[in-house]
């Protein structure tokens, strides 16, 4: 098993940036760049994630470098925390593995006008109500049911479809990446199996590392930007982490099956079958892109419905409407996606396919895709940590545009495998331990808390320090968890 430590080259080439030269392995078209400090690098070397960065550097049409963020860890095919951009004009490929099974897995942050003192006395009741109202865990279906035609409309219209049915407000779209709708989708190309898997799951959290957290702002690092984002000290927020559920998994699965012979057909060598890809400009590539965009739109719908259910629970617990509680969407951002974006490469503007697999878009001030309300300061970047320590709000910066195709990290990154975390938790009561730390945690499965315990993750503060120092995004505010519900 390739759990073995990585022993290849990692050369420091700039502020917190380490290089795997393209001479490391035959077939690498560009260097690998891993953003990390010495402390994180030690952990990163412990498994095969750097090898995966080198493998991604072999993809046809890849530009500049195969890039990894400081929360990098061993994935399947691509590492988690990986970024690569391919140029269709140079035979560039699209890779379902570079997006992941959970297409448009992402995070949204909802503000409230409540403060710690308002929420603390009712915290247990609040978390309990959230847990019993919002479906989480394996096989749980939601209260919203969509027939196949409606499920295809969710993909074809995005959250606007549910907002028009009273589940949110149109201004939610202004604060969702791509306004919650990626053009060029084709829901009719999405398989019936995918539609069936998704039709009962819109508005459900799922399992694994997905969660809904009630958090409090415990430090402000940039007063000016925090003010623009509507954040202040001791303010309570809700963070939601989920994706496109079974629908997205099935879209990826369908594409990987149809890509099985593409390497041979189009004449390129791949070191790992999970890196399966097809030229952007090929029947297989075009079909996957249209399906992936449809699944991404479904992912935005899922988080919209999760937010709406949270708003309703808050309204019931605090006896005021969600509007009165100021529960406005701060921002929603995808961290598993591929998008066609314009970037400057060697002084020339190019449209490239940016794959972000466990990595977050971080566009700077002035970028036209940053919502108007934030354009003067930059795009909000939401970084969930673990359920015991912290999460962060950062802001996009120009360094990311210059170095990482406008991308930063997406979380803390795992430090322990699931099996190791479960073994470590044997005989302990993780929920009790968290309660001692002031966090109320409720999960549908015993494994949920054990495998996701804080120790299983790197310290998100360390990850954020790297992306801040490397100017991939800048610190704005830190939140600590008060309560969490999980699958």
């Amino acid at each position, binding site marked *: *098993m390739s759990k073995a430590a990585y022993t290849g080259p990692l050369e420091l080439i700039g502020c917190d940036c380490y290089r795997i030269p393209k001479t490391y392995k035959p077939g690498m078209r560009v260097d690998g760049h891993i953003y990390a400090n010495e402390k994180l690098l030690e952990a990163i070397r412990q498994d095969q994630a750097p090898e995966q960065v080198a493998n991604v550097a072999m993809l046809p049409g890849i530009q500049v470098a195969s890039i990894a963020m400081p929360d990098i860890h061993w994935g399947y095919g691509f590492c988690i925390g990986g970024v690569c951009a391919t140029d269709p004009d140079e035979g560039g490929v699209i890779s379902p593995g570079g997006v992941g099974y959970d297409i448009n897995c992402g995070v949204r942050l909802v503000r409230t006008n409540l403060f710690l003192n308002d929420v603390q006395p009712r915290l247990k009741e609040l978390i309990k109500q959230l847990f019993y109202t919002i479906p989480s865990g394996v096989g749980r279906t939601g209260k919203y049911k969509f027939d196949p035609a409606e499920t295809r409309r969710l993909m074809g219209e995005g959250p606007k479809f549910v907002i028009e049915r009273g589940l949110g407000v149109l201004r939610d779209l202004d604060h969702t990446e791509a306004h919650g709708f990626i053009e060029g989708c084709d829901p009719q190309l999405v398989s019936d199996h995918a539609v069936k898997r998704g039709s009962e799951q819109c508005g459900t959290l799922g399992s694994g590392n997905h969660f809904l957290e009630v958090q409090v702002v415990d430090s402000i690092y940039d007063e000016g930007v925090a003010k623009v984002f509507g954040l202040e000290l001791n303010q309570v927020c809700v963070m939601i982490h989920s994706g496109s559920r079974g629908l997205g998994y099935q879209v990826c699965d369908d594409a990987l099956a149809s890509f099985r012979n593409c390497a041979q057909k189009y004449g390129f060598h791949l070191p790992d*079958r*999970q890196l399966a890809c097809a030229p952007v400009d090929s029947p297989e590539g075009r079909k996957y892109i249209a399906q992936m965009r449809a699944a991404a739109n479904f992912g935005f719908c899922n988080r919209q419905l999760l937010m709406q259910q949270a708003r309703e629970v808050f309204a019931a617990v605090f006896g005021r409407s969600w509007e009165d509680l100021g529960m406005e969407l701060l921002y929603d951002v995808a961290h598993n996606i591929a998008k066609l974006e314009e970037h400057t490469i060697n002084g020339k503007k190019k449209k490239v396919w940016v794959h972000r697999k466990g990595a977050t878009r971080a566009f700077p001030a002035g970028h036209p895709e940053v919502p108007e309300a934030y354009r003067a300061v930059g795009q909000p970047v939401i970084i969930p940590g673990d359920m015991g320590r912290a999460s962060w709000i950062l802001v996009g910066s120009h360094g990311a545009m210059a170095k990482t195709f406008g991308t930063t990290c997406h979380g803390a990154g795992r430090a322990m495998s699931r099996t190791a975390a479960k073994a470590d938790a044997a005989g302990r009561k993780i929920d009790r331990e968290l309660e001692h730390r002031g966090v109320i945690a409720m999960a549908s*499965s015993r494994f949920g808390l054990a495998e996701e315990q804080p120790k299983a993750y790197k310290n998100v503060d360390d990850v954020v320090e790297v992306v801040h120092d490397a100017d991939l995004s800048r610190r704005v505010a830190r939140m600590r968890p008060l309560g969490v519900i999980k699958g």
Partner: protein
Amino acid sequence: MYELFEHTADLGLRAIAPDLNTLFAEMAACLMSALVEDPASIQPRKEYTIQLSGSEKDYLLVDWLKELLLRFEEDHVLFATFDVQVSDTGLTARIRGEPVDPQRHALAHEVKAITYHELKVVPTAEGWLAEVIVDI
């Protein structure tokens, strides 16, 4: 004989068996052990048939596990016994299981997908070994 093995963010399924038929059955049982806390809680109440075509054994294994996962996801059925006949052109399986009953089946992991990463179906001195990473 099967076991789950560690992979940073996901899970590995591994089985060894004297022949391919048993290997595919063991890998199916291994998948069930990732889905439910106690696979012994699944009763073989109803029979289902699966037929798949494919000549490459590793891809056939992925397709087999994908089919079981899809039936769990779409029809909410768990499986207890697997009678698998693997041939040069595909497989035929008679499997027995029952619908998920939340009172008796404690679900453990959401298996998002069966991946191709480090996929192995290889002969060994004693028979066959298979490994698959599943996305959690």
